Structure formats: C-alpha cells, structure tokens
C-alpha cells in the first residue's frame, strides 16, 4: 500500500471531525460575507411587495422537522414580509409531521409583529388528501377546512371575509421538502383556480423545480438556506439563515477540497497500478 492508497483509506471519523469543526467555527466566530440576491428569490419578494394591503396570502408549509433548518428561516422571513405589508395571511400544511412547526412559526412571528389570530391571520393546520385537499379548497374553502387549527369555525373569521375558494387568494407560496408540495399546488391548484404561485424548497428538490420556474408556472423559487438568507437580506431583517451562510461557505469548501483530494489520490493510485502492471 503506497501513500495515496493509505490516504484514501484513512478512518472516516477523521473526516467527520473536519466537517464538524468547519461548521462549528464559523458559527461561533462569524465573518459576515456579502450575499448576492438571485432573480429566483427576487421573484417571490417582488410579488409580495407589489400586493396591495389586505390582499390574501396563503403560506403552505409542506415540510417536516427533518427540513426545519432550511425551511423554517424561509417561513419566518416570508411571514415577516407579509405581515409587514399588512396582507391577510392564511397558514396551513400538507405534511402531518410539520403541523407543530407550522403552528410555532405562525404564532411566533404573529406575536412579534403584533398580529391577531382570526383577524389578521388564520392557521388552518393540517388536513389529509394533498391533491384532493387542494381541489376541495379550490371548490369551497369552508368545506375543506370547516374549522381552523384551534377549532374556530372558519366561516366566522374576519380574516377570511370575502374569501370563498382558492380563486380569491392572491398569492400562494408552498415551502416544500418533497412531493405534496409545489408541484401538487400547481397541478391541483393553480392549473384551475388561477392564483399566482411561488415556491420555497429544500436544496435537494430545488433543481427539479427549474422547469416550472422557466415556464412561469411558479413566479419565483427560494432554494434552501441560501435562498432564505437572500430573502432575509431583501427584507432587511437578518436572521438564522444569514448567520448560517459563513458555515455554509466553509463546509462547501471543505467538501470541494475533499473531492479534489479524492481524485488526486485516485489518479495516483491508478497510475502507480498501471506502472506496476507495465513492469
């Protein structure tokens, strides 16, 4: 076993350690590198910015705790923006395990912005069915959600006045960690009920949503923690996402270095084997 081979076979726990340190150090000692805003994120932001006061904004938080670090900051930033613009906000989720998180973020941001449940916003909670739920909301919102999350009859809520179906909603944003997310909202919702649709998603599924972005089926896309950081920059309220960007930079470079090292050693091993065979 030569040097390159030995290097390739080092204990992987050493690499675990490297990654742990690369994440931890920038979190403890942040640098604050500048963040450039992409047009995808700007699409969502500018649309909310253009909505007049009192417009109806539906935020569907379609994720579970596994994706909390990526999508929770997005939800916070979007809700802050919507509340600041005095939009009427409807919160919900298509993912059962995400109900508690969605409830938490709605309550927290509403309290911070001085908004009242039932008057300025409503949290509908979770309901089964995904696609059929969305169709049902498009047909009759009150049939799909007879009561909100806190068992208040939805028909009596001031915030929902004049809203009968999804057609009366001005903007829907789905924060998705997988299917039953943005695509579901398009196929079963926007396709027929014609509201404007935007998306936020985890990094894993972001590349798959570009065809919808290109064709204008969604008018913007917030991708992962980086997307959330861009949104925080846009609304001028820096939070967890911006704070994580330095660590993100450090880990990405650590991975890039590791990939390069892997291939250098791989090449070395390959050439030395070839030389060995030639002899």
């Amino acid at each position, binding site marked *: 076993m030569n040097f390159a081979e030995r290097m390739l076979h080092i204990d992987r726990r050493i690499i675990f350690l490297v990654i742990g340190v690369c*994440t931890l150090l920038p979190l403890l000692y942040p640098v604050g590198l500048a963040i450039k805003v992409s047009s995808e994120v700007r699409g969502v932001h500018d649309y909310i910015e253009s909505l007049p006061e009192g417009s109806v904004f539906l935020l569907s938080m379609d994720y579970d705790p596994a994706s909390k670090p990526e999508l929770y900051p997005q939800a916070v930033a979007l809700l802050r923006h919507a509340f600041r613009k005095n939009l009427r906000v409807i919160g919900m989720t298509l993912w059962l395990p995400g109900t508690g998180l969605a409830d938490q973020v709605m309550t927290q941001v509403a309290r911070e912005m001085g908004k009242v449940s039932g008057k300025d916003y409503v949290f509908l909670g979770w309901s089964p069915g995904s696609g059929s739920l969305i169709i049902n909301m498009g047909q009759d919102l009150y049939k799909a959600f007879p009561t909100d999350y806190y068992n208040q009859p939805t028909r009596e809520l001031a915030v929902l006045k004049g809203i009968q179906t999804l057609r009366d909603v001005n903007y829907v944003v789905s924060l998705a960690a997988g299917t039953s997310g943005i695509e579901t909202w398009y196929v079963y919702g926007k396709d027929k009920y014609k509201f404007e649709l935007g998306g936020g998603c985890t990094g894993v599924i972001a590349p798959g949503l570009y065809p919808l972005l*290109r064709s204008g089926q969604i008018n913007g896309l917030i991708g992962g923690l980086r997307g959330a950081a861009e949104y925080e920059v846009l609304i001028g309220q820096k939070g967890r996402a911006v704070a994580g960007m330095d660590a993100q930079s450090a880990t990405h470079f650590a991975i890039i270095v590791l990939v390069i090292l892997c291939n250098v050693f791989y090449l070395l091993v390959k050439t030395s084997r070839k030389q060995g065979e030639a002899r």
Partner: protein
Amino acid sequence: MIFLRRQLPLVITFVTGVLFTAQYYVPHPRSELMLTEVTKWLQIIGGFALVLGVTSLFHIHAVKIRRKEPGWGYSLVLYAGIFGTIAVGFSYSFAAGQWVNGKETINGIMTAFGWIYLNMMVPLQGSMFALLAFFIASAAYRSFRARSREAALLLIAAVIVMMGRVPLGELLLPVSGDITQWILNVLNASVRRAILIGISLGAIALSLKIIFGIERAYLGGGKE
C-alpha cells in the same frame, strides 16, 4: 359473489376514472358540485389510509417482542414512544385549562403534546438527517471519483454549483455565481424538463392502465 369480489372493484375504478377525467372538461355547476363533494370524501378517506400505513409497523414490532428476538427491548422503547405520545395527546392541560386533544398550543400556551413534539420529535428527526452531512463529506473523500468522462463532468458541475451557491465562492471566483445560474436555469432545466415529460407519460400510462383494469397491483394481495 365472484362478480362482487373480482369485477365490482374494477367496474368502480373504470366508472370513477372516466367520470373524473371527463369532469375536467365540463365546467357546468353540477359537475363542479360533484368534484367538491368527492374531493371532500377523498380527504377523509386519506385519513383512514394513514391508519393503514402505521399498522404494519405495530405488527412487526409486536412479533419481535413476542418472540424475544435480538433487540426486542428497542421495540419496547418504540411502543413506549407510541403510547406515551398518544396518552399525552389526549391528556388534560392544567395550564390552558382544557383537554389537549392533539394541539401543540392552546391560546399560545404550549401543551405537553407540543413539548414532546418540539423537544423530542423535532431534534430526533432533524439530527437523523443532519448525520448525512458527515456521510456526504466522507463519501466526497473516499468515493466521489471521476471513474469516467461522464462522472468527471458531473463532479465539475457539482464543484461549480457548490462554489456558486455560497458567498465565499462568489467572492473568490465571482463568475462562479453566473455559471451556476446558467447551469441551473438552462442545462439543468432542460434535463429536468425531459425527465418530467418522461415521468408524466409514465404516470398517465399507469393511470390509464388502472382505469382500464390492466394494472391491478393496487388492489393488493389476499385470496379471492
């Protein structure tokens, strides 16, 4: 009887399938009313499907405990988790002065059910997936090799996107951000679009086969 058992489900599938495909093209209020009602039903039936999903898990671990298979103690932990959470979900909250009934918060006060959710379920699931960060790193070092020209292309694209998506990359190599945008918006979008078209054709073919009774796997096993 044979008709009821074997043909009836297929007839139902055919009729509902054709009806709801056709519904899409019929804007008449009666057709819309049918859609409203039936999607409402599907929502409720969807809840029952969830119950179906978890029962097999109950069964597997019950067998493990009964036979005292290796690691059956962990199955007990699992059962404790299930029943503990259910008990708390239906307990009485003294702080809020009412029954919890599956609410994480009541009037802004966190319930015990919400506590379990936030302090157990959220960190557990979150950490489980955070583990992957470490494994991606070790894979990056040990096995992401440019075995072929194709794999090399993949790795180069990956490195560019990794640089272009973080502030440090854009600082060191400003052009990486633009290239990343181009890769995502043009190259990636074209491939994803082709895949999307392919998958959609597959999904439509499958749905058609189901409606016409050619594909019956969904009916599940079980003796007739």
